[in-house]
């Protein structure tokens, strides 16, 4: 919202030596954020009144004219001009060379071969109008040579632009008078009240318009309309507004339409109360009904759009049909035209939620709907309409109010009284503020404080703050704090007993895991979206229907919650392979599944944390799988996960995009908790992946649950150990673990460790065979093994291997 300081000063003549920027900053600190500020009319002291003496066609351009002007003291200038309304006898603004107009410096220059000594200006060029085409025609009694600033001192102004979002909770700040009240509190300056001409409410005569507010819609929290004021004015003449009114509206960014519409807008920006003017003659059956719309009822809005209404919408209707969407926009059929002679002014208080819903539904956030949805003060409906009527009468001397004010369904804002004291309010702030200052601030903001200054208070909330904004002590704390200035509060630490916080073990484990993968495995952490589309699911062989769907997705490719992370990683691997071949990344993210036995609506889906990784290797070699296998196992070791095992895959554990052969299942206490695998060749081909892409995916919540492996200390061995190497021939696909089990079983307790140190396939081992070499260490905790003992174990091991069908290799 744009604020004119001239307009503010009309209500609150505050004094300050601050610059516009500083005024804006102060307002931001105390009330609401000022996003921009601008100075208007600063060049008007240099722009002069010029009388048009003669107009000649431009010799080289059809649309241009060469205008001779008198700029005072008998001086004359020739100016090339393109305005359609230039003609001898009128007075227009003239900018001499060197003056900056609308951001451009005027220069004496030849225009199509004719010298132009300056510029004649339109209102738009002087920022006095949002949309003007011709030159600004000045009043005929102005004197050539007079600076415009002297002629119109009101045109020098400062405009502050306040962020609408920071006014969300303040219905009273949507007009200049409310803003002026803030200035009064901030600058300790008086505030002039907005007077309504009460006499007009009791005008004589009888309006032919009958007004009714329908049925159950009236009043109450869920009511449609909390007040409806209407007033008929006859004898109006619709014409352009006077300059001062047009300019004032232009300064705050509003378009001038005609005198009647401009009056309703003026009151909107002054008081924050939206009004609407109907053409009395165009109200069918002379009847105004405030009612709910019929389902499917149609209405042509005055911006030319036709909308279909909903039974939840509130409309203003005449005897035949809807003529306005209440609080949002009037209809085209009943709007003011140039031939209008009688108007019916409406100033109401519509239910915020209704207005908001309707405006969102039809896509019209208007100046009116923006205000209604903030819960306006019902008192303003009456004040607004009476001030508007007074203005109409001033602008149209022949106009006459017909009949008394129609004021229906009036439901005053609740009276709210808050018990508190200066001490309570300042204590919550943690600041020392004198009770007198606290009370003065509340006074200036319109609160009625009863009670001794130093004692208990009853604070009555003014009607314009009582619609929902202020209702409790904490709200008053804010009033005092912000006007006093939060920067005046000295910060300090609260008293608190020293206690160590509870550690969130899950998050700590997450961090340990992430740091391990980054530092030990050289992988980088990435984030991917939780949202995927059906096409993505299908591409990777997942059923899109089993996914949790969004009701209001932004796009088809992000319309449901993922159940798997790995497919996204494959897509990201493709993207990264454009720049590099060898890399690794991981993500600790969540996957989401429908709850199996969902009992009530508030039951949330199953969310599980997964730790998934993807490593791209330069070449496809078997070692890659073992590298990733090692990463995963050492990670589990680091996380102190107990009883982890890597076993061959089961049918169910193999994901559609995974290679079934180069594949391992990770098990924790005989429950599956993850996989390590190469990407399936078919997916590899579809995606165009190169090199060797190995993935892993671990159910992190499962890891968390079995993280409690304890460290059991054993003193290092005191007695020497004995190494023994043995190599066997085994069929290609017999897992090494199977051979090792035989060794372990045969060797018994004296086997301290067994490690595979060599595996090779080749001619020596025979077709379909491999050779596996183990490095065994024997020893005992309490003695040195004797030569016989040694020999005996070695024999046992070799015998066991041979009898299990693993011939020894020499």
């Amino acid at each position, binding site marked *: 919202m744009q604020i004119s300081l001239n307009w503010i000063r009309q209500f609150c003549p505050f004094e300050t030596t601050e610059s516009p920027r500083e005024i804006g900053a102060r307002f931001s600190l105390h009330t609401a954020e000022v996003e921009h500020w601008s100075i208007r009319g600063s060049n008007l002291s240099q722009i002069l009144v010029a009388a048009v003496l003669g107009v000649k066609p431009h010799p080289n351009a059809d649309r241009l004219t060469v205008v001779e002007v008198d700029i005072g003291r008998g001086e004359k200038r020739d100016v090339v001009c393109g305005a359609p309304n230039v003609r001898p006898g009128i007075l227009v603004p003239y900018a001499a060379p060197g003056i900056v107009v609308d951001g451009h410096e005027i220069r004496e220059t030849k225009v199509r071969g004719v010298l132009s000594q300056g510029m004649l200006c339109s209102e738009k060029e002087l920022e006095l109008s949002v949309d003007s085409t011709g030159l600004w025609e000045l009043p005929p009694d102005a004197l050539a040579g007079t600076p415009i600033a002297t002629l119109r001192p009101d045109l020098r102004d400062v405009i502050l632009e306040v962020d609408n979002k920071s006014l969300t909770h303040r219905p009273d700040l949507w007009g200049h008078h409310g803003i002026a009240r803030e200035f009064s509190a901030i600058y300790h300056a008086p505030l002039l009240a907005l007077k309504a001409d009460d006499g007009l409410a009791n005008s004589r005569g009888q309006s032919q318009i009958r007004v009714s507010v329908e049925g159950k819609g009236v009043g109450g929290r869920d009511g449609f309309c909390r007040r409806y004021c209407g007033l008929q004015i006859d004898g109006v003449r619709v014409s352009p507004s006077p300059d001062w009114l047009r300019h004032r509206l232009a300064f705050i960014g509003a378009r001038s339409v005609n005198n009647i519409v401009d009056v309703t807008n003026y009151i909107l920006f002054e008081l924050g109360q939206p009004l609407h003017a109907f053409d009395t003659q165009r109200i069918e059956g002379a009847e105004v009904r405030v009612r709910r719309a019929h389902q499917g009822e149609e209405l042509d809005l005055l911006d030319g759009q036709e909308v279909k209404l909903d039974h939840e919408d509130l409309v203003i209707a005449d005897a035949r049909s809807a003529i306005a969407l209440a609080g949002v926009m009037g209809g085209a059929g009943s709007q003011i035209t140039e031939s209008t002679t009688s108007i019916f002014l409406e100033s109401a208080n519509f239910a915020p939620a209704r207005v908001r819903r309707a405006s969102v539904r039809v896509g019209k956030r208007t100046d009116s709907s923006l205000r209604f949805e903030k819960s306006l003060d019902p008192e303003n409906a009456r004040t607004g309409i009476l001030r508007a009527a007074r203005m109409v009468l001033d602008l149209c001397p022949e106009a006459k109010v017909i009949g008394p004010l129609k004021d229906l369904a009036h439901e005053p804002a609740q009276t709210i009284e808050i018990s508190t004291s200066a001490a309570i309010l300042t204590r919550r702030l943690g600041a020392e503020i004198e009770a007198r200052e606290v009370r003065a601030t509340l006074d200036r903001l319109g609160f009625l404080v009863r009670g001794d200054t130093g004692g208990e208070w009853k604070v009555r909330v003014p009607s314009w703050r009582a619609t929902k904004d202020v209702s409790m002590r904490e709200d008053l704390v804010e009033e005092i704090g912000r006007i006093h200035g939060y920067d005046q509060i000295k910060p300090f630490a609260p008293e608190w007993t020293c206690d160590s916080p509870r550690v969130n073990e899950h*998050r700590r484990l997450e961090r340990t895991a992430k740091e391990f993968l980054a530092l030990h495995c050289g992988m980088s952490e990435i984030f991917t979206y939780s949202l995927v589309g059906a096409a993505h699911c299908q591409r990777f062989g997942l059923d899109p229907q089993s996914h949790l769907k969004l*009701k209001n997705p932004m796009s088809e490719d992000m319309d449901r919650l993922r159940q798997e992370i790995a497919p996204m990683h494959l897509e990201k691997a493709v*993207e990264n392979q454009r720049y590099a071949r060898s890399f690794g990344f991981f993500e600790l993210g969540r996957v989401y599944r429908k709850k199996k036995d969902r009992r009530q609506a508030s039951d949330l889906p199953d*969310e599980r944390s997964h730790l998934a990784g993807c490593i791209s290797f330069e070449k496809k070699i078997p070692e890659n799988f073992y590298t990733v296998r090692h990463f995963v196992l050492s990670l589990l070791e680091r996380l102190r996960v107990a009883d982890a095992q890597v076993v061959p895959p089961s049918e169910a554990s193999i994901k559609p995009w995974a290679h079934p052969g180069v594949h391992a299942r990770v098990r924790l206490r005989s429950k599956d908790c993850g996989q390590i695998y190469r990407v399936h060749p078919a997916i590899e081909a579809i995606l165009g992946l190169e090199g060797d892409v190995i993935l892993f995916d671990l159910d992190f919540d499962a890891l968390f649950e079995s993280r409690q492996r304890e460290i059991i200390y054993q003193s290092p061995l005191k007695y020497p150990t004995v190494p023994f190497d043995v190599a066997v021939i085994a069929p290609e696909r017999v897992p090494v673990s199977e051979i090792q089990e035989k060794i372990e079983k045969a060797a018994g307790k004296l086997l301290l460790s067994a490690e595979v140190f060599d595996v090779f396939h080749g001619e020596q081992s025979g077709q379909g065979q491999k050779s596996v070499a183990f490095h065994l260490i024997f020893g005992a905790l309490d003695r040195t093994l004797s030569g016989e003992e040694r020999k005996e174990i070695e024999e046992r091991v070799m015998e066991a291997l041979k009898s299990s069908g693993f011939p020894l290799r020499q």
Partner: protein
Amino acid sequence: MESVDFAEVLSPDPAHFEHAVKEDLSTIQAEFAALLRNVSDEKELATLKVHLLGKKGRITGLLKELGQLSPDERQACGKRINELKSYVEEALGEAEASFVDRQMRERLETEWVDVSLNLSRRPVGNLHPVSQVQYEIEDIFSAMGFEVLDGPHVETDEVNFEALNIPKEHPARDMQDTFYLEDGNLLRTHTSTIQVRGMQRLKPPFKIIGPGKVFRSERIDASHEVTFHQLEGMMVNRDIKVAHLIHFMKVLLSSIFRREVEVRLRPGYFPFVEPGFELDIRCLLCSGKGCSVCKQVGWVELLPCGMVHPNVLRAGNIDPDKYSGFAFGLGLDRLVMMRYGIDDIRHFHSADLRFIRQFR
């Protein structure tokens, strides 16, 4: 160098002994000296040593056979043989030392690396920059006694809105474009849900933070994302004041930016706090003089905060007459963008390692 057959030259021949002792031990000495000069490596040196001083060595042999001589001869010969032995030992020792010396010199001369050559390409990984900042802030708060909490991404309307004093039809729901699920739940639009769940679980006094992912239905562009990260903080105790909030924010921000930062509170409206504030920091780029980053204002809006609304405390089963508290929300993505001058929020979810790996 030619190899020398010591066995041939210095064979321990007893017949030779007579001659040697009787003739001149100095001849052996001369022969040895000549041989030693021709020795070319440690192995030859060792062989020479064995042939002279070994168990069956020539000098050893001479000493053994001394017994056959008369006492006078024995004494005279013994003395001379021992002199020869010392001489040989010393000479061999010197030769050995010079060989070790030479070898060391050779190694030092030949062993060399090209420091510009990168043969081992084992990478150093890293955490996402948002995680890094998140952990940094978690550490600051943990040190101040805050507990770290989290909650589900999919939330109920109750937790995400109602319990935060944002009833249906409240205009504040407009400020947050919410993703709704077909099952009636929604994706949390802020980490304030963690506050709500924290209050339900903990008894005051408590200090909590809740970092996490949040979701908004916004059109994605350089400054808008459908997923980003917030860190929520909350402190509840008897008699918590605005002055305490300002204190904590100053400590926090000075830690984050690693220097004294100037903060200011402005009135700000958020339904879950009363009073509510926008916290600005003095623009770090221009120190407040005004620049494009701060839109010439000298201050940068950083985070919303405020005193917890009594309705929110009530929804969390906390009596607002006994307890008060403050809460704040920090946008982690924005913080990272500010710290590194990143101009496009889309990088964070791009998984582009050219972006991520810069933050090692």
